[in-house]
């Protein structure tokens, strides 16, 4: 049910963004907003709270994004939030980005690292992943301090964990 809704909204976002012709920009902006939504508890609880009036929620989104994102992104986010689907927003954005990548015959590799990757590192990582898995991927970087160092790459259900956090966890396990 939720999956159907998520897929439906993702298709709608993709269709609008494609029609408006700025798919790549919308992807980047929505991805950024989804990351902020995931990491910011206050934002998440405000937008997901059924007791907060829809107008107030839309106002929050407008205030947050005003002048920082394209009009298409703003409208699409207002649609999702206004429809009361804020709780599914990250899943909808993920599904939208996967849908967009699939339209270019690519998969999405979500890369979590403590620091941002350089363009060169992104290209090399994409090449390395193609070498390793045979898939053409688009790299989406999430800055995540909890990784400490190194990188964690997620492609669908596959996870390639090369983080310092994992090493520390392994060390912790070895103590038991």
């Amino acid at each position, binding site marked *: 049910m939720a999956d159907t809704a998520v897929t439906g909204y993702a298709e709608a976002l993709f269709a609008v963004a494609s029609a408006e012709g700025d798919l790549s920009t919308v992807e980047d902006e929505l991805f950024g907003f989804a990351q902020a939504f995931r990491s910011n508890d206050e934002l998440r609880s405000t937008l997901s709270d059924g007791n907060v009036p829809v107008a107030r929620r839309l106002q929050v989104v407008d205030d947050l994004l005003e002048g920082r994102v394209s009009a298409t992104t703003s409208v699409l986010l207002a649609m999702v939030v206004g429809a009361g689907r804020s709780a599914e927003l990250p899943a909808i954005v993920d599904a939208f980005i996967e849908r967009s990548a699939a339209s270019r015959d690519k998969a999405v590799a979500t890369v979590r690292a403590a620091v941002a990757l350089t363009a060169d*590192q992104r290209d090399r990582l994409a090449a390395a992943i193609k070498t390793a898995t045979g898939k053409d991927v688009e790299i989406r970087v999430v800055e995540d301090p909890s990784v400490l*160092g190194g990188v964690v790459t997620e492609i669908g259900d596959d996870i390639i964990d*090369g983080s*310092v956090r994992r090493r520390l966890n392994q060390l912790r396990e070895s103590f038991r």
Partner: protein
Amino acid sequence: MSNRPIRLLAAPLLALVVLVAFAGPASASAESVGSCMAERFAEAVETYHGNVEEAAHDEAVQKKLEKCFEAPSPILPELNEIIWGGGAFLILFVLMVKKGFPAVQGAMDARADRIRADLDAADQAKQDALSVKAGYEARLADSKSEASRLIDEARGDAEKVRADLIARAEADAAGIRERAAVESDAAKAQAIADLRAEVAAIALGAAERVVQSSLDAEVQGRLIDAYIDEVAGANG
């Protein structure tokens, strides 16, 4: 049985013989003293040919007359009495033998039978009593043996219960000791594990802080490069 009447008959006959043999001469007749004296005197008168005075003074005649005063034999009765008495006796005897004796005999036999039956009954009763007594004794013995058996059984049961209780108590004690040992071991293991986890947490916290402080931009870049190389080499 058959010679008994003969014996009964012999006794009175013997008595009669003895009576006759020891009896004195019967001087007194059945006549009275007067008739005796008249008869004697008449004989003497006749002897003296009618001379009454002479006859009366004759001493021989006087002796004869005096003899008339002598009493008859105290033992031997007159002959006619003997005849009548004997006849009556015989008739009575025959009647007794023929009628009385069988009746008496029958009564005696009946009485003897009754006594015998009574004796038999008493004997039977005694036998019955003895058998009842034997039965009671047997039952008493049975009761005693039963009681003894019950006591033995109860003693055996009590012994078994005691043994069971002891065994259970020992088992419980062993179980408690074992549980205590297990709990003690578990507590020790838990304490060691807790200590180890705490030491590990402290060590890991320290390590994390060291790592964080040492992860500058250059190191981060190197780590990412190393990761990319690792991913690229994973296929090879």
